[in-house]
């Protein structure tokens, strides 16, 4: 199923091997130009980390991939489906793309188990029993099956974020988007969430992660994308990116966050 190009061979334009293609994407909020000429190809199974100063457009970029935000120019193709205003296409893409938010966004009025079974039952029309078995398997994978009957408000931040990951995985997505998944967490809970994400990466999930966790980027990413002021300034392998940044803006950013 997965078409892996031989290592070292530059990426050819083979649509089957591409999970996401963004070509010349622009976006404006009124007069404010948030995304400027974004060109980014993501291979299947690839792990991309996006970093950059706040307000640089990182979150907006990944929110365009599952159409939480609309782009106004250029094209975005996710798993062979080009995103347009067509609701059917948006639905197809959203079924294939899972998302984890900075603020978890669990549904507070539903139990952990119900949070996970909601989409399989109502979107995929899966029988309840089957959805619950699936949810328990994924809650076990994120190491909190014992919390299934509780409500989100009764869990720690780290646990809530792991539930959010399990909830997204319940739709069996091909691509996972992470929007600053550890930024709202107390420091002692960051590791449990990063470990869960590392496990996911090792299983071959295509991942795009917006994060300030440079250790995670160095260890897990295939490529690191640096954004500033709405544009992609630099894309490089993590070793090159951290040890030999090409642009002044990248150097400045790295000097500010790495001590």
């Amino acid at each position, binding site marked *: 199923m997965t078409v892996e190009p031989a290592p070292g061979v530059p990426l050819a334009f083979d649509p089957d091997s591409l999970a996401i293609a963004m070509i010349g994407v622009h976006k404006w909020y009124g007069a404010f130009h948030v995304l400027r000429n974004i060109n980014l190809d993501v291979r299947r199974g690839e792990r991309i980390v996006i970093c950059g100063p706040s307000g640089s457009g990182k979150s907006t970029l990944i929110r365009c991939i*599952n159409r*939480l935000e609309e782009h106004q120019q250029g094209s975005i193709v996710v798993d062979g489906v080009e995103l347009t205003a067509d609701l059917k296409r948006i*639905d197809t893409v*959203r*079924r294939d*793309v*899972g*998302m984890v*938010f900075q*603020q*978890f*966004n*669990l*549904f*507070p*009025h*539903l*139990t952990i188990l119900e949070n996970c079974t*909601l*989409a399989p039952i*109502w*979107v995929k029309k899966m029988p309840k029993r089957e959805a619950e078995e699936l949810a328990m398997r994924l809650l076990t994978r994120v190491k909190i099956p014992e919390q299934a009957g509780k*409500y*989100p*408000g*009764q*869990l720690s*931040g780290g646990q*809530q974020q792991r539930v959010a990951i399990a*909830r*997204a995985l*319940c*739709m069996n997505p091909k691509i996972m988007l992470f929007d600053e998944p550890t930024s709202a967490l107390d420091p002692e809970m960051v590791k449990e969430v990063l470990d869960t994400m590392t496990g996911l990466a090792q299983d071959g999930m295509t991942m795009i992660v917006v994060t300030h966790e440079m250790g995670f980027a160095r260890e897990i990413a295939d490529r690191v994308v640096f954004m500033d002021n709405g544009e992609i300034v630099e894309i490089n392998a993590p070793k090159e990116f951290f040890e030999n940044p090409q642009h002044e803006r990248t150097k400045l950013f790295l000097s500010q966050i790495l001590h």
Partner: protein
Amino acid sequence: MSPGPAQALAEGFPDLSGLAVARRMRWGRWTAALLIVLALLALARAFANGQIEWSYVGRFLTVPAILDGIINTVVMAVAAMALGIVLGVVVAIMRLSPNPVLRAVAGGYTWLFRGTPVILQLLLWFNLALVFPVIGVPGLWSGRAVDLMTPFLSALLGLGINQGAYTSEVMRAGMLSVDVGQYEAAQAIGMSHLRALRRIILPQAMRVVIPPLGNEFISMVKMTSLASVIQYPEVLHSAENIYYANSRVIELLIVAGIWYLAVVSALTPLQMLLERRFARGLTGNSG
């Protein structure tokens, strides 16, 4: 070990630890209580000596006409409120929709029905036959408006549609109180707009809207009394019919008042039950 109170005292001071703190006399409270009791006594004396036959109040409290009346009052309040809530939810969703046509229709509805008195709306519904002698769906069914617009249906439409205009604003406030991230999370797992509203947004909005809706329902119980002008046999209408016959006006009005108080008092515990139901997962440290 911490030292005892006596040891902690500076030398030369007497040991007071065994004594209770004296309570100040609260003259204000005593004066206020006295004045209120006097006022209540005067009021009671006035009513006792006034032109009220209390035996009539006791006798008419449970006569069949009054009991039927209070049942009709409760039935109308529940039915009109149910219609109001259904309309309110639909109109609130329309009001928050990205579709400008739906938004305008919802805005117009609220404007029209909040802008006119309920009693006028009731009279209009009741007299609909003057405008449309025959109403129906062309080709399917039709009937004479005089037969169709019974006092019950006129009251239900008048009170329910008017209530919908107010309830829509309550529901809109409730939906706006739900964090936008909830909607985004629902979209991200592939839920459609309506499904996200039904499963995610509305259940959370309910928690916020129940106290104001309880208020609205209490208003509704009392507003049904306006339906007496279009011959709907609710409790005030029954009381009036009786005092037209026996001239015991105040006694019968007191009977009606007692029943309104009883119904409204029964609603408070009901509201508390509902509030608890919708507060699941949201009490204490919610995330």
